């Protein structure tokens, strides 16, 4: 397969950046999107040009490193996959593919397609945990948890922190990301004790770091590679309200 690629190139955070056009030929439909970029980079290096910088690591859809905005969609045209799980068979021969980094004020570009997502870590540092020290846990079976509750907590905990929700949102809101963690921990008996404190601290940090507000468009849910539901945002709102009412 042959493609025309329009790729965002930006040397560093202060560079203005621009699109550049590349042509690439003889790509197997079974190649992954990142393997296609590997082939492009091999070519660029051999031509003495600067290869395209992009984040990636596990290449099996779980580490959350990769994240490209492809033809106007986070992680591209396939459903429920990360960029590394997208395969070229999802495109048509001869297609033009536009590749950009996540665009959000809270995620500044480092180089080309790489952005700084440390804001996500900072939000979780405010309370995305249960404060248990090593050594103090009771027997694992001492508190039974209904399987449907554990399953729902799992659905939220499956978030990989890739940032597609922020990239998909017209307001660059991080609500789905924050809600996933709040919901995961609020559902479990172990996490209830700190629930009110947690939700207030995480929301405050999210606002401080420059993420936009949520207007319930549902774009985040539609583009989430792990199918995390906006029902978790509703739970976050309930948790937040009840925490505020208790003040």
């Amino acid at each position, binding site marked *: 397969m042959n493609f025309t690629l329009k790729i965002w190139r930006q040397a560093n955070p202060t560079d203005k950046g621009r699109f550049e056009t590349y042509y690439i030929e003889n790509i197997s439909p*079974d190649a992954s999107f990142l393997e296609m970029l590997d082939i492009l980079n091999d070519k660029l290096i051999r031509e003495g040009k600067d290869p395209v910088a992009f984040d990636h690591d*596990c290449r099996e859809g779980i580490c959350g490193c990769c994240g490209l905005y492809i033809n106007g969609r986070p992680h591209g045209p396939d459903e429920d996959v990360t960029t590394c799980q997208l395969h070229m068979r999802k495109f048509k021969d001869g297609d033009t593919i536009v590749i950009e980094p996540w665009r959000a004020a809270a995620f500044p570009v480092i180089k080309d397609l790489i952005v700084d997502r440390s804001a996500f870590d900072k939000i979780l540092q405010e309370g995305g945990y249960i404060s248990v020290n090593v050594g103090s846990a009771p027997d694992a079976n001492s508190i*039974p948890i209904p399987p449907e509750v554990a399953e729902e907590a799992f659905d939220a905990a499956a978030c990989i922190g890739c940032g597609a929700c922020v990239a998909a949102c017209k307001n660059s809101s991080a609500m789905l990301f924050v809600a996933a963690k709040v919901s995961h921990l609020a559902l479990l008996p172990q996490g209830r004790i700190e629930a009110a404190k947690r939700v207030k601290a995480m929301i405050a940090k999210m606002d401080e770091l420059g993420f936009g507000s949520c207007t319930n468009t549902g774009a985040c849910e539609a583009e989430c590679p792990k199918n995390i539901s906006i029902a978790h945002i509703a739970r976050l709102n309930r948790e937040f309200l009840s925490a505020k009412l208790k003040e």
Partner: protein
Amino acid sequence: MIELNSKIPEGSIDKKWSNFKSTCKLVSPANKTKLDIIVVGTGLAGASAAAALGELGYNVKVFCYQDSPRRAHSIAAQGGINAAKNYQNDGDSIYRLFLDTLKGGDFRSREANVYRLAEISGQIIDHCVAQGIPFARDYAGYLDNRSFGGAQVSRTFYARGQTGQQLLLGAYASLNRQIKEGKVTLYTRRDVLNIVIVNGRARGIIARNLVTGEIERYSAHAVVLATGGYGNVFYLSTNAKGSNATVIWQAYKKGAFFANPCFTQIHPTCIPVHGDYQSKLTLMSESLRNDGRIWVPKKLEDAKKLQRGEITANQIPDEDRDYYLERRYPAFGNLVPRDIASRAAKERCDAGYGVNNTGLAVFLDFSDAIKKHGKEVIEKKYGNLFQMYEKITNQNPYETPMMIYPAVHYTMGGLWVDYHLMTTIPGLFAIGECNFSDHGANRLGASALMQGLADGYFILPYTIGNYLADMVKEPRIDTKTQEFDQAASEVEQRIEKLMSVNGHEPVDYFHKKLGKIMWDNVGMSRNEKGLIDAVKIIKEIKEEFWKNVKIPGKTNEYNAELEKAGRVADFIELGELIAIDALHRKESCGGHFREESQTEDGEAKRNDEEFAYVAAWEFKGDDKEPVLHKENLIFNEVKLVQRNYK
């Protein structure tokens, strides 16, 4: 010759760890605040260690090459974590987990270490549940278990097919809490490139800031390496693209012994290779072998037709299918340990029975399980794995059998450590996959997560305290000393040297070349001639690399090719040590299969008289042969027997 002292505590096997804990030296709370610890790596071992040490009151600096600690490759572990809880009342016990692990490792690990691991396993589950990890539960809300290769009890705890993800996010959450408390300082996007040794003790590291290219210096009272395995020596593996051996290799060059490098694990259930542009291999969890049946055609002509694409799996009737694991190993069937399942697949494919166009694949078939339990049950158990398979291969495993083939997955070898998890460099510790300690010559499924968390949460916090008790009077050291200058200058010179080659081939060209010789000659099956050839060819690749590698860009900016170049330079040298170790070990054991040493029916044949030891290699210089040191393995609890899963 340096005497290897494993420092195994006195007492019967079930008392050793508690004896150690009751008698080891302690550091008072006030003194802990004066001590700094560097942790390199944020996978299960690194994140759990950094969090636990922060909770104790030490000052911790933690480093990772990714943009966030949550992305370390433990995140990709699928199947589960073993623990001897015996919640299923099916006869499990600490002793049985110990025996299974020791036997699974083909009697090439230390009894005392393995027992300690089994002993701690239950506490890990307690702690993880308290952290909020959503393990699978039964209808009454109690924790569920499944069985895994190499065991006849159900002791594996799991969180769908994403157990590693959930456990790592738990450790990451505890780490975040310590960052908030100010006890842990996080350094992301850093490649740690050198160890700084002062007066014979590890006192710091040199790191490269991957965004700015700056060479940075950090000092501490002890350094903990938790950098994972070296499977990427083989280029194609199930490891993450960034997984590397650079720090452990630099530690080896500074005097830490490297143990059993040839003990590498080839995992039986991975998606087969499909093209030369391929960048990595994807694992399909071993848990699939609970319900999937592995087979190839009985008739060679059917296999040929499959290879040419003339027929599909579903056209071959049951009586013409060879369920070779069930045939060869009736007691364990599809649940034999990984090394055995991998070799059996290779044996069938080498004999011409492979089922895809490359002839390097076997079927993993769920049709019987779907008939028996219904599609819904199978979907609930393995849904995410089936989806992953379909996304990659474009085939629906509910309708047509999966195709699988073995791939490099895990490395049992690593830095030699004593019972305290300390390397031969005082103050330098190695935990998790990067040490050699607990899995012998073959790791059982669901034991890597157990070991990573045992080391980080429960073992290191005690053993490092025992070491640091003597360091309380040592003040913090400045990073402008001669030792730091020297270590930083080594790093700078190497980067300079890499950039100045200015040849014609990109880094991946050399990495693929190395991977090919490693897979062909140092992979699932090894022989003397192949290994001698491999050592020679790897030396040639090294020479060519330093003459002809091409790295674009500059050193003072984000430069992914420069990062890769340093890692591949180290992989090449480590590849040679793997081959040397495999050559010297003239026996078959676990994942190390020497064709010269097999039983009449083709099983691995150990040689306990000559090789019941840990091979610990000492670096002697770039152009000198490494020197072998032996730690003899003494077995008091078990009688050494040929492994039998028949």
